[in-house]
């Protein structure tokens, strides 16, 4: 049988585990591969750490993880962003345990070593005992390379890899399109839903460009929306597409009509937004801006999957964090218009709650499906995960490869990048 290999060879080279149309089950189950992924992927490329709006002011910070390493993302007094390893240089304690906040410094609770927002070691209590054997300039919090594109902050442990903008490549223009859902206001991330599922991180990575599952897994969500929305989400046989954008990135366009939210602003307001449009008009907002907000309020018509850990997914940011080979944490960050009308922002908040989160009408069903993948993958350790959907129709595009909306092109793109990085 063509879908079997003879034996599981745990020492097989990662390159042998990724074929053009399938990947080996051990990618979901092998702890040694997971450890190698942390080293060769999460500690070797650009990893999303925050949206700029999460640390808006001098002194704002959030704590997060790159792979399994705790980091702090902080804005210093000159508004410069620093990504610092959350580890005191004395005896290793974390210097910050809050998820977010505002501060002037990070002070280790163990012996009181204090660090400035840029990570430099400012003070050490009772320094006499060190005599001249402590040079504070040698012991700052370890600072990572950080770069930003359109408010998206990424960090890396590597000083020698390409600049972020080169890494993003053709994905940049999709990020620009995604940010148009601010309707002229800056994008703001005011909160997030966080959850874990018992499965490998790549199961979630795949899902962001998986249109195929939508009508089935999200049947109960589709039953809960109005006719217009239902029509909009009936995209599996529609004119959408998936495009491989290189470096593991891909875009799945589900609703081509909602790719450019600034286009076609003269069109009549859809029926489901008439109530919102009327409220906005009552607030004195001019007709053009009302149309712009209403067109943007439901989000973009595509999911942009950025390898390895973030996606610009219709109306929110999806961030994944690997916990173990069989456990993954997901954050779904809600997006609002900073300074935009509260009525429209409430619409976005309710929309996010409707689908996302542990009590949403969508996320729990995704999570259940992913859990089932992990459970099933413990059977048949010599079998493969099939990713050949949409291959016959796949053709070269300006930025890479393109196929139909429910093609597994985006997953193939991610696994080719996985193969390249794991073989390096």
């Amino acid at each position, binding site marked *: 049988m063509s879908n079997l290999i003879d034996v599981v060879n745990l020492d097989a080279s990662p390159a042998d585990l990724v074929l053009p149309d399938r990947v080996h089950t051990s990618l979901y189950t092998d702890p040694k591969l997971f450890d190698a992924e942390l080293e060769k992927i999460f500690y070797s490329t650009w990893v999303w750490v925050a949206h700029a709006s999460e640390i808006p002011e001098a002194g704002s910070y959030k704590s997060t993880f790159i792979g399994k390493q705790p980091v702090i993302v902080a804005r210093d007094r000159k508004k410069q962003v620093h990504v610092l390893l959350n580890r005191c240089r004395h005896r290793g304690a974390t210097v910050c345990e809050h998820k977010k906040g505002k501060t002037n410094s990070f002070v280790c609770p163990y012996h009181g070593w204090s660090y400035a927002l840029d990570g430099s070691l400012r003070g050490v209590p009772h320094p006499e005992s060190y005599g001249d054997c402590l040079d504070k300039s040698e012991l700052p919090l370890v600072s990572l390379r950080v770069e930003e594109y359109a408010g998206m902050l990424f960090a890396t442990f590597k000083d020698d890899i390409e600049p972020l903008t080169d890494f993003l490549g053709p994905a940049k223009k999709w990020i620009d399109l995604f940010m148009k859902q601010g309707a002229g206001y800056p994008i703001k991330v005011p909160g997030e839903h966080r959850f874990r599922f018992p499965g490998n991180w790549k199961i979630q990575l795949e899902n962001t460009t998986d249109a195929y599952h939508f009508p089935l897994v999200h049947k109960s969500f589709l*039953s809960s929306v109005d006719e217009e929305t239902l029509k909009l989400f009936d995209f599996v046989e529609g004119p959408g597409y998936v495009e491989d954008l290189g470096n593991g990135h891909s875009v799945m366009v589900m609703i081509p009509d909602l790719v450019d939210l600034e286009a076609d602003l003269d069109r009549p307001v859809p029926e489901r937004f008439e109530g919102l449009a009327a409220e906005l008009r009552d607030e004195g907002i001019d007709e053009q801006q009302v149309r712009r907000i209403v067109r943007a309020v439901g989000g973009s018509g595509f999911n942009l999957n950025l390898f390895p850990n973030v996606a610009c997914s219709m109306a929110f940011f999806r961030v994944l964090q690997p916990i173990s080979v069989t456990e993954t944490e997901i954050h779904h960050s809600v997006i609002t218009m900073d300074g935009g009308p509260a009525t429209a922002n409430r619409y976005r908040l309710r929309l996010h709650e409707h689908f996302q989160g542990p*009590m949403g009408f969508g996320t729990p069903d995704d999570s259940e499906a992913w859990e089932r993948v992990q459970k099933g993958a413990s059977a048949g350790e010599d079998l493969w995960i099939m990713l050949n959907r949409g291959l016959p129709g796949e053709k070269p595009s300006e930025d890479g490869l393109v196929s139909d909306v429910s093609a597994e092109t985006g997953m193939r793109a991610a696994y080719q990048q996985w193969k390249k990085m794991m073989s390096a």
Partner: protein
Amino acid sequence: MNLHTLQEVTAFIWQEGDMLDHGEFAAWLNLWVEKGTYIIPIDPREEDFENSLNYAYDDHHMRTLRVQRLTSGESISTSPQPRTVRSLSTFRILAQDAERVTVRCAQNLREFRKDSLKHYSADIVYTLVRDGDSFRIERKLIRLINSDDTLAGIGYIL
């Protein structure tokens, strides 16, 4: 301490909890005033629920949809349906007048589904409106003690 009112609200809230554990959702929907809100916040310090992200911020329409989703059999995360048993205690009346009673209580809920027993503790504040010799729910605010942690799917009504 007005023990009569305390007994009245306790009986009402126990009845509500029992309805939810036994899947009497139509009766549960009828316990609400039309404009009542069912809220499960994320941030323990949040007070402006309407303008922030919650786990749930349900008006009557969303409550009805939520019940439909849980009972439709269309959702793989709620088929099989979780079994729940909740205990409610430590009732304390925070405010009352001729029309309304605000009461806080503790809820410990055990959930079993597919080989897994989970536990959710919450502090609940009810705003109840007097309706004849009973009440209707104007607001139910559920503050999970681990609301700002990572949660797993909650396929039932807290």
